[in-house]
């Protein structure tokens, strides 16, 4: 199974990348196109930004879920996380189009409150892509962290407060160190997922804010340049492998696996 689904396609990918029309020159050609280099950089940078925002926001939500006592609160939080998760990605992205458009919700609100004179150019920009991705990936950030947090005994906080710590101090000094492996695991997984995002950058970023996946699509369907597309794919694969390897070393195989299975 592993050979069929992973190793053979990988070999074919490398073959295509180094095949027609120039062999190893394809790599040089890929990097000589400043658009490719620039977009790969943007992809890695924006994926990192999205991951950081998601882990912070997701961490807060996960902890709220963990320490929620009333059933209503738990229900509200679970719905807030899972209902968007179950909606289709395309629907959510089009909702963002309606939010961010020139005549969309945000601009109408700002204009009516007289906070701006002209509608803001929000759609088809990099911040739009980042916002859309943060929204899409939030459930995926909350779940692994919730698993990590649920293994932390809440009695520890009571004990810390009993010894004189404020709530904030208790969370920072007692809970956070215990949660660090879970947080790192979530960072790694979310970064790898964010690297490969396609729909959100295409629909919210357009041609001027592409991700590597958009470029790969252009290479495949507009330019029929399979070598270029393969190299783009290998770039993303390299990024993903590097992050997971880093995760293994920082966090340990067992915790990473537990976080992924959440």
């Amino acid at each position, binding site marked *: 199974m592993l050979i069929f689904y992973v190793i053979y396609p990988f070999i074919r990918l490398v073959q295509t990348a180094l095949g027609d029309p120039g062999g190893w020159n394809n790599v040089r050609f890929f990097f000589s196109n400043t658009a490719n280099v620039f977009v790969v950089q943007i992809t890695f940078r924006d994926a990192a930004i999205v991951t950081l925002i998601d882990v912070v926001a997701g961490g807060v939500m996960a902890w709220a879920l963990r320490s929620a006592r009333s059933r209503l609160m738990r229900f509200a939080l679970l719905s807030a996380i899972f209902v968007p998760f179950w909606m289709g990605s395309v629907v959510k992205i089009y909702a963002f189009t309606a939010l961010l458009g020139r005549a969309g919700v945000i601009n109408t609100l700002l204009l009516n409150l007289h906070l701006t004179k002209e509608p803001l*150019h929000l759609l088809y920009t990099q911040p739009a892509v980042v916002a859309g991705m943060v929204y899409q990936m939030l459930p995926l950030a909350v779940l692994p962290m919730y698993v990590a947090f649920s293994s932390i005994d809440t009695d520890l906080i009571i004990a810390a407060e009993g010894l004189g710590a404020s709530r904030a101090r208790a969370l920072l000094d007692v809970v956070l160190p215990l949660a660090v492996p879970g947080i790192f695991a979530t960072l790694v997984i979310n970064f790898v997922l964010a690297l490969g995002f396609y729909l959100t950058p295409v629909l919210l970023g*357009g*041609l001027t804010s592409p991700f590597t996946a958009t470029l790969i699509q252009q290479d495949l369907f507009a330019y029929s340049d399979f070598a270029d597309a393969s190299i783009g794919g290998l770039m993303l694969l390299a990024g993903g492998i590097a992050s997971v390897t880093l995760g293994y070393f920082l966090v340990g195989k067992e915790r990473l696996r537990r976080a992924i299975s959440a």
Partner: protein
Amino acid sequence: MSLKSVRLLAFVGVAAMLLTACGSSSAPATSSGPLTPSQTKGRTLVIQGWGGAWTDATKKFAEHFASEYGVTIKYVSSDDPELTLQTQSNAGSVQMDVVDSASWISYKKGILAPFPDYLVNTIKANVDPVCVSSTFIGCYGATANVIACNPSIISKCPTNAQQFWDVQGYPGPRAMDAVTPDATLLFALLADGVSKDKLYPIDITKAINKLKKIKPKVQVWLTSGGQMQQVLVNKEVGIEYGWNGRIFTTLQHQIPNLQVSWDDSVVSNPTQGGLAVAKGSPNADLAFTFLNWWVQKADLQAEWTSALTYPTPNKKVNSLLTPTVLAAMPFAPNHTQPVLEDAEWTFEHQTEEEKAFQQFLTGS
């Protein structure tokens, strides 16, 4: 054998069967004459089109053929049917029959099926000689890029390229055609003061430099014909340099006071592309029969043109069109004549042009 290896073997067996079943079967092309309805009954024809309003108009047309010949027609759309054909040809698995429509580039790349003699004769009998070719029916779907402006959100509407670039004098968010770079590059050169007879060969660097000046004010770089209509209707932009047919549809159905200017417009050469059949298509003989039927139907072609204002080749079509539609077509005498694009140049410089445009768009 262990259970594991039995499962693996079964999986491989099923996979092999599926792969062979998905292979395309090519029917022999009859070169003696078109198929008769009794021969075509029950077959399927795939028409690859531009989507949106274009495909809607083609549907109305082709359904007559479907009922007359007992054929089921599948309408597949993409932002650019020709690119889809190129990708499928490269992959060795052509899944479309009729290419609605193809350009000079497909012809040069040899991915269009040559017409049988009977079809060429029918074409010659029904269209102007300049529209006749052995691989496509020309004078079909020539698309012009024009300036559209929505006066509801734009106080002062630009009417030519230089005004389009004047963001102080004519403020407002703009959208520009990015489906293929040609029209936009030519428009930039016209804005830069290049005279119409000196546009080719296109100085790509000069055009890109001019485009860089207006990039901050371009809200949307359009990737499809449907988007051209959508961004005007949902007021994402107020000024657009887009396809005349889509703009006409918006004018007719959604924004009745849309202002259209033909100054500095650019049009694809009508003799350099048209309706064609994909080489390697699984139903080439049926596709040729369809084209043979299509080229004779002047009334249906007139209906198609009335919906989109793109020309159709039959000699009798112009006499069937209303004055409104005639005035909105690319070569109507009452407005500035558009500059003819040169698809030969595009074929020679495709990669160079596209890479430069891609680098410009991504800001690198």
